[in-house]
């Protein structure tokens, strides 16, 4: 295929899109769908038909617009006007005013910090494309990066570009992506694989889900570029079985891409062939760990094995395997479209680019955001997030899920990057950010995460299997006011044993929520143990009840 021929494809779809003077997009990602956005979309279609504006107005669904708490969300002309909490009754007003000023009572001004402070790269197309339409993706220069890479660059040049971009793995570990690609490229083997890790298991994280539901083609494009770079011709997306909508859209996207030869044999008439298949996870957090994920794709119990050897050398069915998560892969196509230098110009020295976070918990603007690395927690929580729900007092923000920690108020002005978060005892993680106010008890939170780790432990290694059960038991005792300071010392010792000797990342990081709450909220532990009170009023103290009786 010649460049002219390829450019024509995109142009054709752009022209088609521009035939309409007005683009009405209704968010159909999970959160808005829950709030019946599908009915709103139908109402728009009906209204446009009735007002005879079918020639000028196009109604379509779109991916996540970010502000999930205020759904269903609707945009007109990709950002000209954004409407929140749109009900079927509001549809008439919006269509009536489509040539005039936006409807004030529903409008969210464009300069709202929630939108103005974000930098969108991975989420670039979320909200401006219909996730079920390949044409929309092509209109937005989709598959252009893949075309450029396949026709203009060697494998080594692609990897160099990735190194230059400074992108680091967005699944939690932060391993440099370029380096990872280069190890798989160098590994010897006739058969290699690329796996997209979409087993988003952190409770409180929904970035991957939103991206898959909003812009599935960009992930497929990222996988194909990765496949070309490392020399793989087969890709797998390992996706949570709990995400039916994401599965449906991804399946549809794979079919569309295959039919139009963006996947399959000899893509763009080059020697490169690449196929993608889905594999469904079945509810095991540990399968986010690379070796456990591989075991699961092989149809086995999802138990990890010691690394080294790393999957780059010995992965799926013993072949060299590249595993990247959803957000990492969704950054690939934009990097090749905008250039590695552009990407590297955003962020801090060691953490380049942007990061997607799922804001949730006791915060006004819950939803999906993408911010440059190095932004402070305060900006995220108070500017973008709009502050604490009910204007209560901020207590902590939890990042990294069960592998992360709780960050207290004194670090609110710390820049968000891999090193800073690790420095205060948490991790970047996959991007879940849960804000807690004064009504949350830190022992209760630690107990919650330990319960999670205990039930998600695969049971293969002893420190994790028995250690998490022991720690959970001790935390229950503390929360019930039945523990002594000796139990507290045991808890601290167990944290060390489990962290140091567990087989995989799940066990090695399981003590983090306990360690970070001990570090910053030790007085709460003491209050539970010595004074038998829960300062936040969450835990029910057994000994207190006895006194009442």
């Amino acid at each position, binding site marked *: 295929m010649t460049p002219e021929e390829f450019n024509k494809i995109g142009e054709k779809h752009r022209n088609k899109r521009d035939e309409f003077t007005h683009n009405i997009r209704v968010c159909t990602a999970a959160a808005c769908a829950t709030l019946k956005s599908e009915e709103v979309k139908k109402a728009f279609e009906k209204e446009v038909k009735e007002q005879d504006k079918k020639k000028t107005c196009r109604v379509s669904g779109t991916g996540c617009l970010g502000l999930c708490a205020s759904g269903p969300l609707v945009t007109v002309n990709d950002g000209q006007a954004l409407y929140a909490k749109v009900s079927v009754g509001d549809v008439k007003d919006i269509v009536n005013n489509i040539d005039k000023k936006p409807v004030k009572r529903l409008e969210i001004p464009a300069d709202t910090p929630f939108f103005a402070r974000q930098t969108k790269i991975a989420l670039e197309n979320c909200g401006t494309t219909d996730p079920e339409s390949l044409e929309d993706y092509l209109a937005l220069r989709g598959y252009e990066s893949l075309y450029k890479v396949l026709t203009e660059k060697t494998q080594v040049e692609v990897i160099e570009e990735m190194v230059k971009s400074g992108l680091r793995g967005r699944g939690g570990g932060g391993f440099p992506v370029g380096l990872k690609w280069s190890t798989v490229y160098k590994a010897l083997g006739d058969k290699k694989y690329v796996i997209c890790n979409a087993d988003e298991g952190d409770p409180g994280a929904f970035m991957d889900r939103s991206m898959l539901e909003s812009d599935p083609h960009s992930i497929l494009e990222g996988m194909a570029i990765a496949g070309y770079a490392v020399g793989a011709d087969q890709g797998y997306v390992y996706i949570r079985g709990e995400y039916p909508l994401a599965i449906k859209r991804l399946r549809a996207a794979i079919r569309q891409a295959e039919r139009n030869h963006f996947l399959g044999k000899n893509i763009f008439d080059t020697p490169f062939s690449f196929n993608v298949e889905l594999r469904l996870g079945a509810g*095991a957090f540990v399968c986010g760990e690379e070796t456990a994920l591989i075991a699961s794709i092989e149809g086995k*119990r999802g138990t990890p*094995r*010691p690394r*080294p050897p790393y999957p780059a050398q010995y992965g799926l069915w013993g072949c060299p395997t590249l595993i990247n998560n959803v957000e990492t892969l969704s950054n690939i196509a934009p990097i090749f479209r905008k250039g590695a230098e552009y990407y590297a110009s955003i962020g801090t020295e060691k953490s380049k680019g942007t990061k997607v976070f799922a804001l949730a918990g006791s915060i006004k603007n819950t939803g999906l955001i993408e911010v440059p690395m190095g932004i402070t927690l305060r900006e995220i929580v108070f500017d973008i997030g709009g502050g604490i729900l009910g204007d209560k007092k901020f207590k902590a923000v939890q990042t990294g899920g069960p592998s992360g920690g709780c960050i207290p108020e004194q670090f609110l002005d710390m820049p968000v990057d891999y090193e800073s978060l690790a420095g205060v005892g948490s991790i970047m993680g996959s991007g879940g950010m849960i804000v807690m106010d004064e009504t949350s008890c830190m022992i209760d939170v630690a107990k919650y995460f330990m319960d999670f780790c*205990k*039930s*998600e*432990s*695969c*049971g*293969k*290694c*002893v*420190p994790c*299997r*028995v*250690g*998490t*059960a*022991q720690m959970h*038991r001790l935390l229950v005792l503390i929360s019930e006011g039945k523990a002594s300071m000796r139990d507290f010392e*045991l808890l601290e*010792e*167990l944290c060390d*044993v489990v962290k*140091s*000797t*567990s*087989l995989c990342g799940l066990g*090695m990081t399981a003590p983090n929520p306990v360690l970070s709450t001990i570090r910053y909220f030790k007085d709460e532990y003491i209050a539970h143990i010595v004074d038998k009170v829960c300062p936040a009023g969450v835990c029910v103290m057994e000994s207190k009840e006895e006194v009442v009786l």
Partner: protein
Amino acid sequence: MSSSVNIITLTIDEKQVGARENQTILEVARENGVEIPTMCELKGLTPSGGCRMCVVEVAGIPKLLPACMTTVSEGMVVTTNSERLKKLRKNILELFFSERNHICAVCASNGFCELQLMAQKVEMSHVHYPYLYPHCEVDASHNRFVLDHNRCILCTRCVRVCDEIEGSHTLDIKGRGIEAQVITDMDQPWGDSETCTLCGKCVHVCPTGALIERGMAVGEMSKRKQLLPYLTQMREVKT
């Protein structure tokens, strides 16, 4: 053995040793008289790396590595017996003891139990974690063997020997985490198993009194693990 395998040198506990590059730290240590404690490892079976008793420190690597599954490399500096490792091993062993029910005085394997021996080896005097004491069944439905889950430490030696040596894969693990348990076929009584060949290898590789021969009284159940290296060798010769 093909001649293309490179010979390398490394340091184990300040001692310079030579090794073939595809050997594990554990193998090289044993050849050189350095003893590293192990629980789930058994010569002749694929290592699993689950018991974590054999973890060692390798200079330049922040995390501890299992000696049974880590291959040696040129210039590697390995420490197997630092004070920190000794303490951690003791703690891990205590976790083993605290998980189920390990009262030696009423166990058929008393005196022959590897868990018991290990406690002596790492000088574990008492268990200072609370005992979890879950309620576990004893499967006595088989006419030759007994499976007592209370004594099981989930080392999976029985599962591996049944799969890798006997080839019948009657045994496996169900559930996960602290709820994990050894099963026969579809978690049915062992006596009803359609696939068990009654070979008894599982009994003899079991480190504790979880798998014993029927009718054994306290302190009678000694195990013959010598069978394994021999069987493995036979299998290798055949292929």
